[in-house]
């Protein structure tokens, strides 16, 4: 059964439509890549899924989105965001909070842990999964803003993983990373998909080909084609898709 289901999703910012009717099923415990040129609406779809879109007063959303068969717009938004975590394109730790606080904040706000011991264990385990623990174990009290870009992004991964989410949204998570950090993140995603559903936005087709199980190609707010990644890349059914995956459409 599909973990996430979009039914006729439409989003507009003010007068300009961004998503014009998206239908898409995202299977559980797999990596689904959303590919497409800049401005095709990939990031907007992610922000609908955890309802961060509601931070943009000019955004209008219609249609339905289901998580495990439940309409997310009927869910408590805090409960939704506990289950659906997100990694952003620009690493965005809260710079004045400490490394520890950045990971612990969500757990504390949502009262997901009892006592300091359990909190520490959860933070430690999240930092370990994000492969950051060894680099920061001796300076957990340091402001997160002092970390390097690659470390900040892994801190954001740890922050998301601390929730033990069901769905992980990743908005071009490696766009600002060097090849080494990119490889680390990709390897991590392949490990994580055993436990959760990952929706990966990328504008770099080879990344989708490397790690995704399913791929959807978005163009001007609509899904041109979607299916198993292998099929999309080896026998695309649409000329636009073929152009995109072969690097002739940006």
């Amino acid at each position: 059964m599909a973990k996430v289901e979009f039914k006729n999703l439409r989003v507009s910012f003010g007068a300009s439509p961004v998503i014009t009717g998206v239908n898409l099923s995202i299977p559980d415990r797999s990596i689904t890549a959303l590919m497409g040129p800049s401005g095709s609406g990939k990031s907007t779809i992610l922000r609908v899924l955890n309802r961060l879109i509601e931070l943009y007063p000019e955004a209008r959303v219609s249609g339905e989105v289901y998580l495990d068969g439940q309409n997310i717009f009927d869910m408590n938004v805090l409960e939704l965001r506990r289950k659906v975590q997100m990694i952003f394109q620009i690493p965005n730790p809260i710079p004045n909070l400490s490394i520890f606080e950045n990971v612990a904040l969500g757990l504390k706000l949502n009262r997901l842990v009892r006592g300091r011991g359990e909190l520490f264990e959860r933070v430690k385990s999240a930092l370990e999964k994000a492969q950051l623990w060894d680099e920061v174990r001796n300076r957990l009290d340091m402001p997160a803003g002092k970390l390097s870009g690659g470390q900040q992004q892994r801190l954001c991964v740890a922050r998301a993983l601390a929730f033990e989410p069901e769905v992980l949204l990743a908005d071009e998570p490696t766009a600002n990373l060097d090849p080494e950090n990119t490889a680390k993140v990709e390897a991590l995603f392949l490990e994580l998909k055993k436990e959760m559903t990952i929706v990966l936005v990328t504008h770099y087709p080879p990344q989708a080909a490397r790690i995704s199980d399913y791929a959807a190609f978005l163009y001007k707010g609509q899904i041109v084609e979607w299916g198993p990644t292998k099929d999309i890349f080896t026998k695309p059914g649409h000329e636009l898709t073929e152009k995109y995956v072969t690097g002739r459409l940006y």
Partner: protein
Amino acid sequence: MLGFLLVVLLIPYLIAAYGLLFVKLRWGLRLFGAFIVATIGLLTVMFLVEAYPIIARDGVAVFLQTGWDPVRESYGVLQALTGTVLTSAVAMALAMPMALGVAVTINEILPARWRGVFGSLVDLTATMPTVIYGLWGLFVLGPTLQSLVNTLARDTMTSPYTLFTAGVLLAIMITPYAAAVIREGYALVPKPVEEAIYAVGATRFEAALIKLRYVRNYILGGFFLALGRAMGETVAVAMVVGGNFVRFTTNIFESGITISSLIALQFPNAASYQYMVPALFAGALLLTLFGLAINAVAIYIIQRGQI
């Protein structure tokens, strides 16, 4: 003396302007910076010179003793300094929570289309002439506070015009200043950081608290701007503080005086006495040094707190 000071002040600015236009921008700007410091220094020196007669007569006692007796030419500014501290403390204690509330309400809770209107309205209240606040305090706030306080605790406030009245009026006057600075910082919280805060499941209220922590330097900035206004405000305070410059009191529900209102209320007849003008300048000197000390503390705190 005053004319001499004006000339002294004018020369450096002319030199600085010359430097700015013909020598080098960098040097011109440095000179301007230096002369701003020099202005404060010269003011302090002028106060010291003008206050010298009473300092020569009484020593530091003029700053440490209370009472104001023109007949015996005995003056002390301690009760005025105490009044300044007490009214400012009451004002800050009330104004900071209000300013934080105003900032969060306007930037976080109001619908986006109302934010500009309400923001401008709050800013507008900062530009009203202080004498209007004073009139309102005289006829509305003072009597209202008196009956309110006396309902809660009988016979606490014997007059509508007390240090407390001045403190509350000051709080209302300085809230927009602090709120404006806090709002400015609040609007600078980057969108990605805002998204991060909400993505980890913060409610609106929790998000507001986290953002306020992020902009704590602006809150400090607003605090000290408002404090400076509270300590220096003259007309409105003089109208509602009760004008008791004779008897020393630390009870905020009694009439009192502040340094600036003492100067405003006593200057008109000061020239008739030999030592009153120097005594008032001694007050001005004290207020200036006090203000400088507070600014030094502010700079220290903000630099230490920098990320």
